[in-house]
């Protein structure tokens, strides 16, 4: 009886020790990076906490890996916790980081509203918070790092200018009216084509939805015979519009946004002309760089935009 109890304790103990030596090797890492970082010798005391909305999505996994790499490079210990898309787990993760007394917390929120109390909890403990990719609608945040949708829209606009050699008729298919992504992407796109001979002949929302993108484009094709290019605020709508274009047997340059798997495949097949991709690895790396500045008491901008890149064939 006692033997078994002892055995159980022993087993769990071994398990715990195994975990510490096996998986949390980041604790030893700062030692190896000490040399190139002589001027920041106190790095080992700085702990960065990173709470990721979910690691069940390649976008956020890439972001996390880039953050870990950057932290290693700068010689900081980084603790990564996964919220598994559950705001309840997210707030617990933040509380654990507070007890762990980390120097700064990077949060990639599961939901902008639900994260507010977690941010407030960190504020109350005097730990600065940086949000990644999604904003927090509450609490105080040192800086927010996310893709620059305006620049992305501009990038799409410039690509279309190039393709049409500065002259032609374009359709803009918009996202859900009022959504920040729709506003920003549209703003960038219109800024790019403003000074050219490219004319937006039709502009209609299709709510980021593929079926609606198809219907909207079918209707537009009824009233406008000559269209040279389409810019859709996301790939789903672009793919829907592409179906309408194919159905009408036309040859139109279609540009989407997000670089979803379907869209990238379509670009590779030469159907869609291009799609704008976010760069999660940059969001992660810039997050850690901003964290360093915040810890050192340096000033950081309220919003740090991350550039996007264009994927063409």
């Amino acid at each position, binding site marked *: *009886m*006692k033997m*078994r*109890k002892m*055995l*159980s*304790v022993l*087993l*769990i*103990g071994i*398990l*715990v*020790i195994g*975990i*510490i030596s096996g*998986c*949390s090797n*980041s*604790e030893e890492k700062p030692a190896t990076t000490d040399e190139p970082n002589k001027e920041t010798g106190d790095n080992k005391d700085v702990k960065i906490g990173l709470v990721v909305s979910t*690691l069940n999505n390649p976008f956020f996994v890439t972001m996390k890996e880039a953050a870990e790499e950057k932290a290693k490079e700068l010689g900081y*210990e980084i*603790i*990564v*916790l*996964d919220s598994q*898309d*559950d*705001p*309840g787990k997210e*707030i*617990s*993760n933040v*509380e*654990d*980081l*507070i*007890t*762990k*007394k980390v120097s700064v917390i990077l949060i990639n929120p599961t*939901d902008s*509203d*639900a994260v*507010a*109390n977690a941010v407030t*909890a960190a504020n109350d403990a005097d730990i600065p918070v940086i949000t990644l990719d999604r904003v927090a*609608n*509450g609490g105080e945040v040192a800086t927010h790092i996310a893709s620059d949708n305006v620049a992305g829209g501009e990038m799409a606009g410039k690509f279309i200018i190039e393709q049409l050699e500065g002259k032609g008729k374009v359709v803009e298919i918009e996202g859900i009216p009022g959504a920040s992504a729709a506003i920003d992407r549209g703003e960038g796109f219109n800024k790019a084509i403003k000074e050219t001979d490219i004319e937006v002949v039709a502009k209609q929302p299709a709510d980021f939805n593929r079926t609606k993108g198809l219907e909207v484009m079918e209707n537009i094709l009824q009233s406008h015979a000559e269209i040279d290019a389409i810019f859709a605020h996301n790939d789903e709508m672009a793919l829907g519009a592409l179906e309408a274009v194919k159905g009408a047997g036309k040859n139109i340059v279609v540009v989407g946004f997000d670089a979803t798997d379907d869209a990238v495949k379509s670009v590779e097949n030469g159907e869609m002309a291009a799609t704008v991709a976010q760069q999660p690895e940059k969001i992660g790396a810039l997050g850690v760089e901003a964290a360093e500045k915040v810890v050192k008491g340096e000033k950081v901008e309220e919003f740090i935009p991350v550039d996007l890149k264009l994927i063409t064939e």
Partner: protein
Amino acid sequence: MNREFFKKYKSIIGLILFSIIISIFNKDFLTVNNILNILRQTSINSIIAAGMTFVVLTGGIDLSVGSILAFSGAVCISMVSAGFSVFLAVIVALIIGSIIGILNGIFISKGKLQPFIATLATMTIVRGATLVFTDGRPITSGGSKGAQAFRNIGAGYFLKIPIPIYIMVIVFLLSYYLLKHMKFGRYVYSLGGNEEATKLSGINVDKVKIFVYGISGFLAALAGIVMTSRLSSAQPNAGVGYELDAIASVVLGGTSLTGGVGSVLGTIVGALIIGIINNALNLMNVSSYYQTMVKGIVILLAVLLDRKND
């Protein structure tokens, strides 16, 4: 005597030893702040698990608790944001949870459905109802006048101790009293031990079952209120998978899934073990990929050893 002592308190002894081992490896673990932190984090799961204990003691299972949590939380916060008093919103949410639980009980007792199937169905229906009710989007208390008062339920303090901890303690004291010192408790144990014999001795078995699932629904709704208040926001997909943590807590606490044997005090220990695993692995910076695996292994080991001890 010594043997009896060990047998009775083995889960608590295990919990204490487990904590000591972790504290050797992590200095942040055994601090007052972190203990309060663990208790607060455990409160939601343990409130659900308390209700689950009643159900499991009768030999049943309740898979619908996660959905009930989400639905009642959503109803509660939407009432608060619409300007109703927090008190009324809480009462309505608790009534809704109890009704869903009672319906579970009716399907199982009068409808002669397997508890697994009946609650699987309500789990799906209530999750769907939550999606319909919330329109698939989170609901926030926003700037309504009751928002701050509502937030206190899950995020507030009384005498420097988080309020969810008080709620959890009250739930467990009442559950303990109900099971150990009231006739109803004896019926629950006897129903789980031998349903036929219980029926023959003139006890209204159906009534006991309906009541038991009602308690589970009520407590799931209570957990939903705490959770929603803690986040000041109700998520349409809140509580997915929470039934499994609750069942694991009950089993870790030594309650037999076939019914009749176990206690609600064991359940709180089981819930604490699960809470401590999550917290300790976070504090020790264990990769989250391993965390889920370790949780499963600890549950497996604990239950295996528990079996051998019997």
